[in-house]
């Protein structure tokens, strides 16, 4: 088996004196969608923030394609190809859709390839193409999420971290977003996905980790967890 694209080994992260992650180990392999599910405050977002260097782990290591990411600055991590689409979309509301997408490619220097990728992203999200000159803040929630994902793709990710991409979207858009996630993955980008919508996440993912109060309590193939009684009870809302 080849080495994983991204792996965490015994990562412990603190906010001040409060410990948010306890010995978190997980891996994302080539071609995979890995779901990370768990309740509020379980440490899902902290896991992603630790990977992308926005918080420093106190112990453990984050390895990406053989490089250790611990101690590497967030901007250098983006340049390596670890791209994080943050929770709540966080598009630049007063910039146009095009400017948002261009900023996504900020860390890259290859102008010709960026132009090609822009066409790819617009082909993936025809809605954005219609609204290139519109201000980001005037888009609907679903369109903003498309823009957030499109912007992340502009960074040419080697691994994509998605934080709650379906949050606050209408049911139709949730389906669209999950189709897009599967599509991006088919094009060869491994994805680490955080979702509150555990059922959807487990349907699209190949493997899954369950995080509870900062620790990984369960892991396995997504299909197996969909049938796991404890998971069904806690996260899928079934008796």
């Amino acid at each position, binding site marked *: 088996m080849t080495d994983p694209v991204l792996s965490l080994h015994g990562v412990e992260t603190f906010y001040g004196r409060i410990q948010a992650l306890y010995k978190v180990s997980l891996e994302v392999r080539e071609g995979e969608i890995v779901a990370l599910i768990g309740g509020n405050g379980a440490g899902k977002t902290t896991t992603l923030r630790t990977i*992308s260097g*926005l918080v420093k782990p106190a112990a453990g290591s984050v390895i990406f394609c053989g490089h250790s990411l611990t101690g590497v*600055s*967030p*901007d250098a*991590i*983006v*340049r390596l190809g670890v*791209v*994080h*689409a*943050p929770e709540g979309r*966080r*598009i*630049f*509301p*007063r*910039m146009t859709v095009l*400017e948002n997408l*261009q*900023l*996504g490619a*900020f*860390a890259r220097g290859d102008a010709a390839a960026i132009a090609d990728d822009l066409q790819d992203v617009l082909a993936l999200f025809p809605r954005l193409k219609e609204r290139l000159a519109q*201000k980001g*803040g*005037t*888009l*609907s*929630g*679903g*369109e903003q999420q498309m823009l957030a994902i499109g*912007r992340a793709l502009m*960074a040419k990710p080697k691994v994509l971290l998605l934080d709650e991409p379906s949050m606050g979207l*209408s049911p*139709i*858009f949730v389906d669209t977003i999950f189709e897009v996630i599967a599509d991006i993955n088919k094009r060869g980008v491994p994805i680490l996905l955080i979702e509150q919508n555990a059922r959807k996440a487990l349907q699209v993912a190949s493997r899954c980790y369950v995080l509870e109060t900062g620790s990984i309590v369960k892991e396995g193939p997504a299909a197996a967890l969909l049938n796991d009684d404890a998971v069904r009870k806690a996260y899928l809302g079934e008796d």
Partner: protein
Amino acid sequence: MLGGALRRRVRWLPFGLSDAPLSRLLVGVAVVIVLAMIPMLDRNSSHISAFADTGYVMILAFGLNIIVGYTGLLALGFAAFFAIGSYTYAFLASPQYGVHLSFWPMLLVSAAVAAIFGLLLGAPTLRLRGDYLAIVTLGFGEIVPQVFQNLDKYTGGPDGIAGIDQPRLFGYAFGFNPTPYYYLYFVIIVICLVLLNNLRNSRVGRTWMAIREDELAAEHMGINTTSAKLLAFSLGSAFAGVAGVIYAAKLSTVSPSGFDFNTSVMILAAIVLGGMGNLIGVLFGSAIIGLLNFFVLPQSSNWAHSLGTALHMDFLQGVDLNAYRFMIYGIILVLVMLFRPEGLVPSAARRAELHAEQEAGAGIALQEQAEFGADIP
């Protein structure tokens, strides 16, 4: 025919001017010519001096606009960097230490010194946000003139440093004649405008605006927000350094009282009035505040005195409108905030920001309607 020619964009001009329509360039050229002719049309040297002093307000406003307008860091006490620029020149070009370096290279040296102090202040404080940064920079703005005042062994204390060298150009001595300073400010302001116009549209300019919009998102894009903010801080301070040198040379003296909180407020008022983040707005705002400060208030006091003498109305002779300067700034700012919060010439982004709630609300409502509407049979 002519209309078409005027709208055509000029492609061959350097310095990022080439995307402007010809009509706008012609207006710009006309304004430049008129402004360049003012000292020939108005031979009253106190007027020219007031116009020249407006120049330093403009350069300071350009600098502060990088920090507050482009990057969105609320920095008060900007006059500190102006003071540092002035005193740097005063130390190195006056009888104080017997050092007499030439004026022209000192423009760059003082800019560099002010930039270094910008970095020194910025490095420990830039992780602060919003109001906290405002308070720290306010404190710095108070400390710097105090230091110059209290280190009287080195700085001449409250009296400051006198006899500062004045520039010479090809054997022509500027002296106390305001006209050459007017042209010097003029040239430097044009250089600043070209520089800033390019900077705004550059990679660096985009990082600043991304930080202003959403700092966390900017970080996610791979922008090194710390170095971008430090660059904004030091570059903005460098402008203040340049302004300080010309200010000190024109007066030939510096003293701590010239760099008090009032000066910082004046500069902030200028960019708020004009429209933060918009270069043309900042140009207008600083021109209005500068002219009000150096020309309109003193002149109208004089007019009131003459009127008083002519009409034998004694109370008019005692009028000193300069004393009401800050009341007038205050009224202007309150009126601008009430009726035109985006400034006189707003940047498109600011306007959108201040009216975002209505626009975004309407946009989302329409969109939701469309999305759900499709479902309803």
